[in-house]
Each structure stands twice: as C-alpha cells, then as structure tokens.
C-alpha cells in the first residue's frame, strides 16, 4: 500500500503549478507583460489568466470556467510597437512578450425579452427585437474581434436575409463574451441576436423525432411504473445479475 501513496504524491507534485500557484524557482523562461499599463515579469508559457495570477491578481470578475466555454475573460491587448488592438480569451491565450492588456469585466449590452413560442419563424422576429441589425456596415470588425474565430459578419448578413440555418450554424460556437458588440460601430448586439435566431432554429428548424414524442407519452402515461416498482424492490444480487446480463447494442 505504501507504493500507491507515493504515486499520489508524485502526481500531486507534478501538478503543483496548476493547483497551488507558481513558485519562482521552478521557472526558466520569462516574458514582460503590461497589465493595465504596469510592467510585470512573468513566466513564459502561461496563459494571460495564469500570468495575471502569478503577478498577484486574484480574480473576482473576468474569470469563469477557465477552459474557453463561458466568455468571462474577454481581454483586449496590444503588442509594443503595434497600433492594432487585439482580442482574446485570457484563459486560452499564451502570454507574449510586450503585451499591453486589460480585461473587460462586464458588457452592458441589450438583451431583448421574448417568448419564442409566440413568434413567427421568419426574419421579422429578428428585426422586431434587434432592429439595429439593419445598420450593419459590413466592416467585418466583429469577425476580427471574435476570439472563437467565428465569421460574425457573415452570420449577421445571413440574419438580415432571414437565413436561420446559416445564423444558427455560423454562430453555434459563440461563447457570448460580448467583444463583437463592444467593437461594432453600428451598435449591433450580434451575440444576443444570434441567440434568438438559434432558439428559433432549434425549435422550428427540424422535425421533432417521433420516437421522442412516443417515449414522452409513454412516460407520462406511466408505462414504466410497474417495471420500476419491481426494480425498486430487487435485491443487490438481482441488480448485479441484471447489470451483468445486459446486452450491448451493436456499434
């Protein structure tokens, strides 16, 4: 048993940098970054988020899932000697030498209220709730700002044409960080508009599978009640047998 304990210790030791914070003595390579203008020397190879923590920042805002799904850590940065403002998710982007960066703690964007069960499945619903859609200048700034590399302008244009499939597919991987809306000169809230379009598409864009409707009906009618009553009084041995006797569906 002693040996197993040491396995756990080795694993814990190897993961220390991500579980307890980084110790300077373990670092070989360094870069200089500028957090809201102030210079910090941080280990190379960290994400922006990890680097800020190393520098001493403890997040309340601007950190969420830490894995690229929630959009909380929207970041704007510029590299020394470059005029261009770039965008990134702090948890999914490596720090680079000479980055000037700031995070966006909140996006004060409009989100319309609606009941999709009562709206028509056509373009009018998009213009009803997001009329500024018509102001799109086709400048592509939104696309350039998207940290997910989505073709934002393309799906905005598709929305104007009422092509729900294209909006839904094109915006599906949106994490709603809000960077597109913040950069948009036409004040469009791309990501919220797309949310409405996707919900309309999800509800009305394809036929509900018959097998699902059938099963829902069966459950509501109590078709499985008897089976479950029997199951719930089964012994452990019977459970184990049922489990061992399962037949696996073919691949």
């Amino acid at each position, binding site marked *: 048993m002693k040996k*197993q304990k040491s396995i*756990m210790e080795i*694993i*814990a*030791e*190897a*993961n220390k940098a*991500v579980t307890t*914070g980084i110790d300077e003595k373990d670092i*070989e390579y360094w870069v200089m970054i500028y957090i809201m203008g102030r210079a910090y020397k941080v280990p190379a*190879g960290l994400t922006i988020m990890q680097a800020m923590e*190393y*520098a*001493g*920042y*403890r997040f*309340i*805002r601007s*950190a*969420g*899932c*830490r*894995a*690229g*799904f*929630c959009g*909380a850590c929207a970041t704007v940065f510029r590299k020394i000697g470059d005029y261009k403002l770039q965008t990134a998710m702090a948890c*999914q982007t*490596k720090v680079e030498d000479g980055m000037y960066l700031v995070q966006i703690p909140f996006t004060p964007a409009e*989100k319309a*209220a609606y009941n999709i069960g009562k709206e028509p499945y056509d373009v009018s619903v998009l213009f009803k709730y997001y009329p500024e859609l018509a102001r799109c200048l086709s400048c592509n700034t939104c696309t350039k700002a998207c940290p997910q590399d989505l073709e934002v302008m393309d799906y905005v244009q598709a929305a104007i044409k009422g092509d729900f499939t294209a909006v*839904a597919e094109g915006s*599906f*991987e949106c994490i709603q960080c809000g960077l597109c809306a913040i950069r948009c000169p036409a004040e469009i809230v791309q990501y919220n508009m797309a949310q*409405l379009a*996707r919900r*309309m*598409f*999800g509800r009305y*864009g*394809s*036929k*509900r*599978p018959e*097998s*699902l409707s059938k*099963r*829902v009906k069966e*459950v509501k009618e109590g078709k*499985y009640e008897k*089976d*479950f009553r029997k*199951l719930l009084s089964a012994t452990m041995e019977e*459970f*184990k047998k049922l*489990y*061992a006797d*399962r037949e*696996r569906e073919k*691949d």
Partner: protein
Amino acid sequence: MAELKFIEGYPEYMYELIKVVEQTRAKRKDYTPKAMTMEEREDVLKVHPDYAEGGKRAINIGVNKGDIAPNEVADLLEAYPLIEEGEIDLRKPDYTTDILIIGGGLAGTTAAIWANDQGVPKENILLVNKLRHGDANSIMAQGGTQAADRENDSPVIHFIDALGGGHFTNKPDVLQTLVEDAPLIIDWLIDLGAMFDREENGDFVEIWGGGTCRKRMHACRDYTGLEELRVIRDEFKSREIPSLEYEPVIELLTDSDRVTGALLWNFETGEYKIVEATATIIATGGFGRLHIRGFPTTNHYGATCDGVVIAYRAGARLRDTDTVQYHPTGAAYPQQIIGLLLTEKLRSMGAQPVNKDGEAFVFPLEPRDVEASAFIRECYVRDKGVVTPTGMRGVWLDTPLIDIKNGKGTVDKAFPGMKRMFARFGIDMAKYPVLVFPTLHYQNGGVETDPWGKTNLEGLWVAGEVSGGVHGKNRLMGNSTLDCIVFGRKAGISTAEYVKSGKKRGKLTLEHMKKYVKLLKEAGIPKERKAPILLPDYRGKRVLARMIDVF
C-alpha cells in the same frame, strides 16, 4: 539553455514518440481491447485516488459524524463561518422572496423557470450567483445528455446502466426520477430551441457513453452544456426573473430545523444582505477547485464546495461523501491546459487510449473510475506513460482514429471546441494524438434528497452536483447535465407547491451557526480554518510572501 524545439506543437522528443503510435494505428483501427470483468475492475481500482491510502478521513462533527470524506472536504466541513455572531443585523431583510435559488447553472436556472411556470410570479423568485449567471460547471459540459428515447432503449435499461456504473450504491427512487424524466427534459429543451445534433430526417444523432449498453447520448457538437445553458438562461432572462451576480451566499438563515433565508455578501463592496425566503434551493455545483489529492481539475473557478458547507452547517444530511470522480481524459499537455476536459465523446467516436509503446491497453469506454485507474496503472505501475516537459505523465488518446473511422472532417464537425483549444497551442488533434491523464471532475456525493430534491431540513431543496445519491459512488457520462435539469425542474415545481400551500415565512436567525461553532470549539478546530472559501487562490508565491495589509 536553449528553448525546447517544437514540431507540430510538441517538443521534439514527444513528436518522436508519436511515430510509435502512428506505426501501430492501422493494426489498432479494427481492434478494441476487451472490457474488464468485475474482478479485473476491482483489481485496477486499487490505484484509483479514492482507494489509494492517505486521502480521506472521518468527519468529526455534525450530522454525518463518522462518515468518510476526502481530507480537503472534511476540513471545510469542520471550519468556522466567515462571520461572527452579533456582527449581522437580521432585523431588516433586504429581499423578501418566495423562492431563493442559490447558483445559476443548469439546475438553478431551470428551477426558476419551472417555479414560474407553476404560477409563482417572477418577482417572488430570486436567483443569486457567486460569479456571473452561467459561470458554472454546466456550461463546460461537452459530451452530452443521456435520455432513453430510442425504440430499442427504455428508462429501465438506463436505470440499470447508471446503477451498475454507480457500483449499485445509487438511491433507487431518485435514480428512477432521473431516467424516467430524461425524455421529458430533451423534449423541453427542444421547446426552448436547443440545437441537438440531428440526422437529416430530424432524428437525434445518438452515441455511446462510457458504461452504457445503448447509444443514448444527445450532444450539441462538443458544446452540449454551453448550448443547454444558453437557451435556458435566455429563457430565464426573457422572463425577467430577478437575479444577482457576484453575491455569494456565505451562510443560511434558520428557524430551528427550517431554512428561512440566506446571508449574501457583495464580493466587490463587502456589504452583506439579508434574504428572507419561504423556500430555498441550493444549486451551487461541486468542489473541483479544492484540488483533492493535488489533482488538476476540469471544474470552473467557483467550484469550491460552498453549497455543501453551508447546508451541512444548517443540519442537512450528506451521503456518498467518500468518492470523487476523476475524469480519465484530462489534458496532460500542453501546460496551459493541464487538467481541462477532453470529452468522453472522443472515445465514443473511436479515439483510443494508447501507451508509449503504441499499444491499446484498455477498453475505451469503461465506467470513468475504471478507465481512469487503468491510465494511472499504465503510467505509474507499468511505466508505459509519456513524460511531459513539466514532469507529468500521461497516455496518448489517439484522436486521428476518429476521422479514420468516421470519415475525414469528423473531428472538425463533432469536436470544434476541442480542436480549437489544441489549435490555440499549435496542435492539430485530427492529425496527431493528444496526451491525457485523469483529472478531478465531479463530486459524486453531496446533500441527500428525495426524488423532488427535498432535503431533511424543511424549506431546503438541492439540485445538481451539490446533491448526493442519484449517481451513487460514480456517475456516468451524460447523467450530470441530465441530473441538473431533471432535479432543477423537480425542485422548481416542488418549491412552488410548497409556497402555494400558504406556508408562512419563518424567523431569521443564525442559531444553527452558534451551535455549530460550539461543536467546532469543543473539537479544538483551528480558528483560522474558515469556510466557504468562495474562490481558490492561485497567486504567485513570491507576491504572497511580500503582501502586507495596509488599506
């Protein structure tokens, strides 16, 4: 010292090792190692972090005194509150509500909508979030949601799968609700406009999950949780149900054995607020950020066990606190994403675990604890793992097999999120395998409930990961998003009924806290140990060593 030379995102030496994997790929394409027998499972589980010595101890205080829990969890259960008695003025509630929901992931948000559907007016519901609404483990769920809705499947078969996966320790009546309500949940999600993967005729694309004997996983590419949470949250916001952000609950309020509200704390101003509630639902998720046994985690920033801590102090009963779920496939390389989730769906679609010698060494879809143990054994007992530049070990997950088995472009289409994550660090997972090692994923146990999410305390419900019982000692893939939505719905309906029955609000006191503090003192618990911890602390050691408190 020169920087490491990288090829295709890998250090040169790792790139060389990939060639070994490529050499055996053609042979492995049509070969799958046999699933383990129950005896073989038992044997391999000996190297699982739950079973290896030194990780757990008995809880010394409270309702579950004598039960076993991970050291990190037991420490938090035996910790002092963040506030002291007398510090808080409970006379004037800042909010008075019928239903207070703590935590805005899938479970909490679903509960609000269903309570509203049962006729509780929106202004009588309050959702409070520690972080932003939706910053939760829910949003990170990738693989899918189980529901037995195909002709050859049934809720009964789903039940048996989950029960065996949970080592027959699941609470059967709660599990029945999970599997029976599953098709209803998928139906509801379609009503809300969720975009599940579909065949051309509208049928769901349904795939395997580890430990299941039917294909019943409903996925939205590899963004299932994101899609489900987005539509549910959008519905919540469209209904304009009140919610607060960055205001964690730091203590419940009680009237003897009844929960009557909660104490909120504004994360940014430090101000406390009193909520008076007829019914309270805790849906705060799990504890990955406790880094049990020093493991990295797939969990979001706020997964710090808060809900279990505050409920336990108020007298809620816990169960199955002794097991933790480690997901077999956390990223082991590159360093920036260590511990992050690589969905089980990768293996459902044909990716194969392979050791350093290019051998497929395990059936790819064992229940998670068995699969994870097999990886640990391969790395640390058989020494057939690959060592990374930061000293981690891992096994390959041969992802190029996905395109080989399902057609070119499948990885792009089915795993855009994963592909993007690795591409950001220079790795093309459709062309090259990725390195994986188990990562802390899920809190199997939690607050015990009945099939409606009710706890042993009057006025208190729980839903989602914070609860215990439905998964027993090990959860299957696709049952967590399902758990959240099924029991969020149940708790929403049940609290609405409770409120509508004319229940009066109780007194607001911290008596439970006083009693608990007395127990802590008697047990000699160190004063500096406090909980809930709210957030982990990853600040650099150098800065912490020089920090002084002057302002």
